[in-house]
């Protein structure tokens, strides 16, 4: 199963992507408890792409939903994964190498930049980034 949606990379368009992804998640049998996490990942990443991949010009973002099977090393049973791929054709940006907020500093002195990406990386079970042919592809997967 694989479906995709292309929307303008604009912060306020993230709800269209949420509706699309929720429908794909239901088809894949993803649990209800995953839906708000998916909304969070979509909102944070669409805003990120709108702000940083296309800082000056308009651009597009493609969101692909796919179900994958990954071999689990622990118990030998295959895990089902529900994955989202975010593709844009803007400035190269690897979310896995972005600075993370320093959680050891007192909150009243903490610089909370990078919090959105931190939440995405912590909520997901696996993340992967690839830059190819002028395209950023960031894949976020959840066990279902």
């Amino acid at each position: 199963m694989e479906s995709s949606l292309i929307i303008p990379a604009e912060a306020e368009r993230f709800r269209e992507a949420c509706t699309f992804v929720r429908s794909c998640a239901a088809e894949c049998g993803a649990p209800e408890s995953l839906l708000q996490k998916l909304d969070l990942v979509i909102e944070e990443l669409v805003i990120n792409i709108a702000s940083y991949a296309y800082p000056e010009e308009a651009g597009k973002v493609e969101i692909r939903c796919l179900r994958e099977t990954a071999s689990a090393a622990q118990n030998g049973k295959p895990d089902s994964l529900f994955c989202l791929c975010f593709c844009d054709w803007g400035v190269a940006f690897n979310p896995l190498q972005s600075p993370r907020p320093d959680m050891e500093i007192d909150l009243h002195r903490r610089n909370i930049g990078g919090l959105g990406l931190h939440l995405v990386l912590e909520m997901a079970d696996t993340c992967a980034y690839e830059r190819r042919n002028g395209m950023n592809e960031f894949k976020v997967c959840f066990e279902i």
Partner: protein
Amino acid sequence: MSIEQVNEAGITILQVDGSLDGDGTQVLEEKVLSLLDSDTSCLLFDFSNLDYINSSGLRVLVLAYQRLKKSSGKVGICGVKDYIQEVFEVSGYDKIFSMYPSRSEALGGL
């Protein structure tokens, strides 16, 4: 998203219902800033009916915390659902904010 303000025992309670996404966060930030400007010193966010929060929503809570910390004020959060609790844990904010299971416990503890 809707916000209801109640003042009880010297504590300003903001009950935030629905989703704190991009638009909702802006409304909450304006509300919080106006309270801080009017000398509110103890603020309780009641999230019993809040289903969603993003990083911008967390930033509004941090803003309130940072401003009130300077004036020896307090910020509490009560009634969070499982997803919201996970966001707090992942961000480490569950260890920083005073968090209570219910409004009545928060009113007793703040």
